[in-house]
């Protein structure tokens, strides 16, 4: 027998008796979220090729939907300008707005706020970005801790307000996906059809819907907040359905995050002429 000197009170960032690769999960979260943040921020600044009208398509990137204003830039084709005008709620952007302020800046705060205050993401990024803790049973880098009990993270409690906005976005994106199934024919009429882009847009709506309507706040609002669910059978059934989505909230969160990024990429590639959308009919 030999005596070691390690004490239970030993602390210091990363100290643990765990033998597994505990750093992999926070590292993957860090890389995944960072990649998405960098890509979406860059796309917002880039601000072009977010509406694909090539070959009669009408695919709008979810990063830019709804288009509140659009910049009437020189060099826009007549087709694209017409399509942008049809999508834009308030027409062209006022002239004093710098060109780098793309339509994305007006709307991205909503889904970003929804994800930032999401209960799943909070737990994930507190680990991956703040090391608070970096993983279970692993020592932290800081001694002081305020959690969500005090300023500033007490503001995480506004999550349900972001949910309300995010829920509206699902219907807007659903409308976009529906619009994406109406293609401009050679005679100028719109004809119902289905392209790869339509499937991509609908996939985005389904995944974002699964994520949004599986939200913990929604689960509470729909029925979790009442103790006698048997007296509210409709809410009870809704609570059950939301609970099913909620049980896989992490999966929905990641799948929808990846897919919304891919949807934007697909639209960008089609709009820039790099990819040609395949039409089934």
């Amino acid at each position, binding site marked *: *027998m030999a005596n*070691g000197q390690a004490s239970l009170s030993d602390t210091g960032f990363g100290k643990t008796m765990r033998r597994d690769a505990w750093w992999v999960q926070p590292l993957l979260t860090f890389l995944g979220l960072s990649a998405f943040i960098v890509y979406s921020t860059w796309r917002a600044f880039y601000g072009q090729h977010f509406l694909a009208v090539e070959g009669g398509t009408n695919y709008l990137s979810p990063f830019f939907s709804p288009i509140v204003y659009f910049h009437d830039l020189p060099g826009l084709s007549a087709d694209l300008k017409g399509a942008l005008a049809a999508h834009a709620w308030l027409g062209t952007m006022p002239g004093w707005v710098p060109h780098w302020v793309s339509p994305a800046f007006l709307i991205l705060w909503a889904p970003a706020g929804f994800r930032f205050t999401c209960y799943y993401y909070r737990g994930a990024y*507190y680990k991956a970005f703040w090391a*608070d803790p970096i993983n279970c*049973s692993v020592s*932290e880098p800081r001694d002081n801790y305020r959690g969500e009990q005090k300023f500033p993270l007490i503001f995480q409690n506004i999550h349900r307000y972001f949910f309300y906005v995010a829920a509206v976005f699902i219907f807007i994106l659903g409308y976009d996906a529906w619009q994406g199934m109406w293609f401009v024919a050679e005679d100028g009429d719109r004809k119902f059809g289905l392209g790869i882009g339509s499937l991509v847009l609908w996939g985005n709506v389904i995944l974002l819907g699964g994520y949004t309507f599986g939200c*913990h706040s929604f689960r509470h609002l729909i029925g*979790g907040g009442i103790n*006698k669910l048997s007296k509210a059978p409709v809410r009870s059934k809704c609570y059950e359905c939301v609970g099913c989505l909620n049980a896989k909230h992490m999966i929905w969160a990641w799948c929808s995050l990846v897919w919304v990024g891919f949807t934007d990429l697909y639209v960008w590639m089609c709009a820039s002429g790099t990819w040609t959308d395949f039409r089934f009919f």
Partner: protein
Amino acid sequence: MAKVDFKIWRGDAKGGGYQDFSTDVTEGMVVLDSVHQIQAESANDLACRWNCKAGKCGSCSAEVNGHPRLMCMMRMDEVLAETPKGAPVTIQPMKAFPVVKDLVTDVSSNFEIKKKIKPFKPRKPDAEDGTWRMVQEDVDRVQEFRKCIECFLCQDVCHVLREHSLHDEFIGPRFLVYAAALEMHPLDTEDRTTELKNAHGIGYCNITKCCTNVCPEHITITDNAIIPLKERVVDKHYDPLGKLWRWIHGTEKEANDQQ
């Protein structure tokens, strides 16, 4: 049969360190069996608390290879599978509680915390014989929380207690589960949301789900107990529009009665 090396923490409230042991491990053994074997073979004074050896009394909580676990439910073959070749299996007492001796910790502070939570306050009996009527659907949710065996592994793994020692400001996951069981009970009329926000410090929980991951009874602590309680706190303290909506629809009083 194979010889396995162990590194077991030994000491008391004044301090201690890891001590090396070696013992034979046979098929079907759990960590607690190994500890008992080491007691019998080479350390008669090695202290460990245990009782049922069936994962129901919650006595043998310790940290095996750094993970808070019940020693009686952790099979040695699983432990060896996660232990790097040539490295010893480490066993130490729960870090979030004061050590009494070796693997035994003083968890009595938990029972003091429990006393601070407002007790069950049922509505008036439904029948003249002093009994109540409930619907199974309404108690399903609460029954999950009643599975708790009070092993306090969730308290141990919670970084608010383990790393920051905020025992006076935060009641911890076990007692949030306890509060949820009371708060969501269809007969209960007490309102604990203000205490949860202030005295019980629910805001300290930052939802890392470590408590859920270690629960031997597989209670979905974070998603089914803590987050719903956080949402009830939001209802009462952070959602002026919701409050206004309930006031306009006349459901505010009902909601208060409900809680």
